[in-house]
């Protein structure tokens, strides 16, 4: 068992007062989050900004203590055995945390020292980690001369020195161009396969989430859904039809009672999950053609899974 989280909850203590009323605490950042990671897989923590991803990340990295619930990483309790947990995890933060005034090798040496590594053993580990991330030729370059993608790779190399069992990455692709993003995920997958390390990376990009083995979908501090991407999409069944109409609300109420339909109206779009989209489109064109500006259908995607689970459109 790599991660076992039970009913994790956290609320940032920033109470506000409206007028003369009582203090009002903001909504919890994390509310009853329960999940398990049993084997080393590539896992995406998917959710828009403010969904609780970072809070969960901070708790799993032992930087915050959960206020409710408990969690274990590699069999160690996050609160009682934080030091042991830190030995099992490698962490990449959203903001670059390399020392720009030092070279890549100096940065890696500092990191190795923090984990109690030194001397020949550390030099060997640095060479191995640099090789894994294709950084061997850059080891003696100043960090400030590296591109964003290379810096990210250097940061990942830094987390590999102590051979962690779980890599935690907070939005690792933020600030990277599309090519560097693709490369980054290629490296993460390679690490998971060759090193057998579990990788848990938060993201708000659906295409990144789609290539993972398992998804944890966060929404307003709760775990809205979890599963492998393809089965999650297949579970919705059939197709999704989006109908743009200036009488969307009325059209929605016409369609809602139909068996097997899951209908939602968002602004001027009626969104229908249905078993047979071509038939629906044909019927609707005939019966309500004059209400409709546009109709489109597609196989369910992760955006649809997100909508189905949360009732909100995915807005990264």
């Amino acid at each position, binding site marked *: 068992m790599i991660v076992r989280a039970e009913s994790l909850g956290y609320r940032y203590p920033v109470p506000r007062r409206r007028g003369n009323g009582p203090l009002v605490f903001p909504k919890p950042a994390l509310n009853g989050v329960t999940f398990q990671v049993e084997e080393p897989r590539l896992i995406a923590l998917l959710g828009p900004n403010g969904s609780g991803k970072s809070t969960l990340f901070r708790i799993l990295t032992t930087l915050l203590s959960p206020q409710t619930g408990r969690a274990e990483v590699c069999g160690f309790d996050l609160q009682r055995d934080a030091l042991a947990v830190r030995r099992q*995890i490698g962490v990449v933060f959203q903001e670059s945390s390399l020392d720009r005034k030092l070279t890549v090798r100096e940065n890696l040496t500092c990191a190795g020292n923090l984990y109690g590594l030194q001397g020949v053993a550390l030099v060997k580990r640095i060479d191995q980690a640099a090789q894994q991330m294709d950084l061997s030729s850059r080891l003696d370059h100043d960090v400030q001369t590296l591109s964003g993608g290379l810096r990210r790779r250097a940061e990942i190399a830094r987390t590999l020195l102590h051979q962690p069992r779980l890599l935690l990455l907070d939005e690792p692709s933020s600030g990277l161009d599309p090519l560097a993003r693709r490369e980054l995920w290629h490296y993460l997958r390679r690490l998971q396969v060759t090193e057998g390390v579990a990788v848990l990376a938060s993201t708000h990009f659906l295409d990144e989430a789609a290539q993972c083995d398992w998804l944890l979908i966060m929404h307003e501090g709760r775990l809205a859904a979890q599963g492998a991407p393809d089965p999650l999409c297949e579970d919705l069944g059939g197709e999704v039809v989006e109908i743009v109409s200036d009488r969307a609300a009325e059209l929605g109420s016409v369609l809602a009672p139909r068996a097997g339909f899951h209908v939602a109206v968002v602004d001027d779009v009626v969104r229908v999950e249905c078993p047979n989209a071509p038939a629906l489109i044909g019927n609707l064109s005939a019966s309500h053609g004059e209400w409709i500006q546009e109709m489109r259908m597609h196989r369910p995607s992760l955006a649809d899974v997100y909508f189905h689970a949360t009732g909100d459109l995915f807005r990264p």
Partner: protein
Amino acid sequence: MNRYWIPACMLFQRELLRFWREKSRVAGFAGTPVVFWLVVGSGYSDFARFLPGALVLTVMFSAIFSAMSLIEDRKEGFLLCVLASPAPRLAIVLGKVAGGALIAASQTMVFLFLATLGGTLYPNAQLGALAGLLVLIAIAFTAAGFLIAWLIPSPQGFHAIINLIFVPLWMISGAIFSLQQSHAWMRWLMLVNPVTYAQDAIARGLGLPFADGHPIGPLIPIVVVSVSAIVTLVVAAMVINRPSERNLL
């Protein structure tokens, strides 16, 4: 023990390395004592009277501003990596404080050497003991600065609090007016102020004479300075050991 001293040594070396690579800090390090010595030394006829206070001021500011590197570490994200690593919190405090304290104590020793012309001006001065004393005082001030930099992550706030707390502590340490000359209530304040003992210990190390009725015995200053260094270190390690949102600012 390795898990303590390897991270602590790394943080200590890093502190010195970053100091060395930042040439403006090195210039300040070397220049300040010289300027102090030239201006204050030649402008005062009673230089000896103010020398202990000047030494405390030098070590205090140098130590506290070395501790400010914590604010930079936090801004650059380095602190997060340290906190997410299994390095013991006490090792983190020890490494960073040792680095900052060494820089501060060395700077003050340069000043001490210049001001006493290598000891010739003060034949009774015990320079070896003074060096050790300056290290202890530097540790106490660096650890206090570390604690404040931990609690107040903005550089402006840090400066404000330093000016609010440490400048007055220095003023009522006997650096400007002596214990015997002050009012009874002020004397009490001075006697509970740990900086008074740092100042007193330095004056003793220089072999300066005290007026009759000086209320502090010869051993007490050393004890107070040592205890202050240990207490500030332990409190700093305890405070950063608590997981909190402060980790994430």
